[in-house]
């Protein structure tokens, strides 16, 4: 097991390497110039050239890349070109809201979707099943930002139940913290409820056709027990996969949701950085995200180990 984890962690290195190269190349090839952005509207070309030189942006790409990797290996993610802040600090400032939103979304989605999926599979072909599936498909079909506006319009503006926007750190009290996360969570989780419920249904449906389910029934077990103990546990692996995949997909939803609800999270940091060509920040954040992706995948594999004793690494 320890060897497995170590092996897997080692195997992430090539992935991270690929990511680093892709990101770096992509960014440097993109038009746009942080120096011009820094200089502002009335700047002259000569001034922009001077700033570019000062930032080291006129060096050959390979040199810049090597420098970045070198500093990275020393734990230095660099400094934002635009705001002059260390990238690590920028990320540190922004990580809490994103983490909070991602966590509530996943928890809520799983809590709702898994039971829905199991019930739909169990009652395969009935109106309950069709209802769950219809909801899933509709959840897939509405753009996130439209959903966000609808929530704000309904729950915050018309009913005045919840705040419109903003974020309060959990350190300032759980009430205000959760209050501001309700609408973003509802907005973002719809698509994950859809995704997870659908996968759960398919997976449980498949397991229900397995011989050991028949065995369980032949033993005279009651249906709830057959569903939870026998069906769901065996169906868990694809469901966990899709939850993990969901976490990695979450980021695009997070970017939009953070904008709509004004959450000061990583998603917005990244989009801002991309638009401002703030290379060190983008590189840092994407590296973080892909590291997270790799870790999540590792977590998923470990979950397989727990859920399926047949798998031994």
């Amino acid at each position, binding site marked *: 097991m320890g060897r497995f984890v170590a092996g897997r962690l080692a195997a992430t290195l090539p992935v991270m390497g690929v990511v680093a190269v892709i990101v770096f190349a992509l960014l440097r090839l993109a038009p746009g110039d942080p120096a011009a952005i820094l200089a502002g509207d009335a700047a002259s070309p000569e001034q922009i050239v001077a700033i570019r030189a000062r930032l080291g942006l006129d060096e050959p790409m390979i040199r810049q890349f090597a420098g970045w990797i070198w500093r990275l290996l020393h734990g230095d993610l660099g400094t934002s070109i635009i705001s002059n802040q260390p990238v690590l600090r920028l990320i540190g400032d922004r990580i809490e809201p994103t983490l909070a939103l991602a966590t509530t979304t996943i928890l809520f989605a799983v809590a709702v979707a898994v039971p829905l999926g199991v019930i739909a599979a169990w009652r395969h072909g009935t109106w309950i099943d069709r209802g769950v599936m219809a909801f899933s498909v509709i959840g897939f079909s509405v753009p996130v930002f439209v959903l966000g506006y609808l929530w704000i319009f309904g729950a915050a503006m018309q009913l005045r139940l919840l705040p419109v926007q903003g974020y309060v750190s959990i350190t300032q009290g759980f009430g205000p913290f959760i209050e501001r996360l309700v609408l973003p969570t509802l907005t973002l989780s719809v698509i994950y409820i859809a995704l997870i419920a659908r996968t759960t249904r398919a997976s449980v449906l498949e397991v229900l056709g397995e011989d050991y389910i028949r*065995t369980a029934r*032949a*033993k*005279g077990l009651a249906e709830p027990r057959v569903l939870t103990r026998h069906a769901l546990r065996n169906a868990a692996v694809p469901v966990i996969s899709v939850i993990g995949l969901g976490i990695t997909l979450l980021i695009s939803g997070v970017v939009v949701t953070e904008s709509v609800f004004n959450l000061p999270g990583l998603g917005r940091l990244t989009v801002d950085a991309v638009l401002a060509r703030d290379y060190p920040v983008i590189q840092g954040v994407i590296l973080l995200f892909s590291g997270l992706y790799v870790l999540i995948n590792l977590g998923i594999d470990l979950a397989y180990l727990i859920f399926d004793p*047949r798998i031994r690494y």
Partner: protein
Amino acid sequence: MSPVLEIRGLSVPLPGSGDRAHAVEGLSLTVGPGEIVCVVGESGSGKSVTAHAVMGLLPPVLKPSGGEIRLLGEDVLAASPSRLRALRGGRMAMVFQEPMTALNPVLTVGAQLAEVLEAHAEGPSGRARHERVLALMRDVHLPDPVRMVRAYPHQLSGGQRQRVMIAMALANDPALIIADEPTTALDVTTQAQILKLMRELQARRDAGILFITHDFGVVAEIADRVAVMRRGRLVEEGTAEAVLSRPQDPYTRMLIDAVPSATPPAPRPRPAAKPPVLEVESLAKTYGGGVASGLGGLFGRPGRVVHALDRVSVSLRPGETLGVVGESGSGKSTLARCIARFVDPSAGAIRLDGADIAGLRGRALHPYRRRVQVIFQDPYRSLNPRRRVGPSIVEGPRNYGTPAAVAWERARSLMDLVGLDPSALERYPHEFSGGQRQRIAIARALAMEPDLLIADEAVSALDVSVQAQVLDLLESVRERLNLAILFITHDLRVAARLCDRLIVMLNGRVVEEGETAAVFADPQHAYTRALFAAAPGAHRREAAE
């Protein structure tokens, strides 16, 4: 004494466009206490439907339309769902065919056993339950129950799993045990042990057993009474002795006749010694162990090392058939796949007409591929389901430059040879039965005009009657084309019928080799002797003769 199970006039209609109106029609059957009733019949005859109907486990599409099923006098078909649940696992229990899939892979054996006890209110609880689980495991002769309760199904062998299933069935001392082909998936030695266990338990517990099988060897081994089913109907019923030795119905007779005899036919005259087509020398194959997996090893992980083949030497002349017997996992398929060069052997030589092909790869192998053809075990998977039969057959010859017209002409004549209508070429594999598909696979192999035919368990998946037809076909093809055949099987009787010589494999090694008759008459190796002893039906038949 009142019967444990009484089925009267049971009919189960088939939905929609089945090939017949009823899966089971007007079936009547009884099982008394302490009695083993065997239900035999070809595939699709309605045996499983009957069993599931008794358990109340039929899929929703199948609904009994008439008749009744009485368990200790209580009508099962009329029982409420909760009453049915109480009966299942309580009064009646079932053992399924596939031990590999019938146990939940993510729960320990102990937990699954305990569950049957939990599910029924009258069962013991706590400590007592645990003791009972251990006792059950001991009852079915599972080794080291204390350790094994914590094992997961995949850590058990097939035979052990089937024992767990049986223990599960016994848990609440049911009056009726239904066993649906419980040994079909097991190899002979294991099968023998399981049958012995069933007999022993029935004697000890006095439960009625409804035992479903298509193997007359098994019937001969354990049945008190026999019921023969065909196309959903009961065609014959009687004591085992009566049905086996004096079958009334022609269908029953046909089934019994189709069972290959356990004594080899007299050695047939063989063509004069020609140089061997195939010479395999000290062939070895090791699975796992890093290096071979190349770049994958950089990112993957080294696995467990398996010596699937260990210095195996074999030779084969034209017109000769060599049988390879051995239990599951002994390396038979690996040998076949090495010779056919689907896998790269780790060491040793494979000579086709003197040319060593063991080290060749890719294109270099191309000229030799034509000369060795394989027929696989699973007739359902050995034909591409998305291609018509014709293209599948002419594909090979076309690859070697045979003109289309010639290839198609040959395909048509091959259809004739394997006893199918040439119009079969226009159809898809799913439109054929298993036996027909196996004929098509043979035709495909023959289309290549090979020198060597490898049949890897080519008849194991087929019904006895169909099996007989395919064996006949192979025999006639061998005569006509002077083929060398490497015939892989785990069934000694089948081997006896077709093979000139035999090798017996164990753990990747050849442990015995000789003329078929000689091996049968005087097996040298202990393992070979064990194989003979385990063959179902061996005792009774001996006794009868």
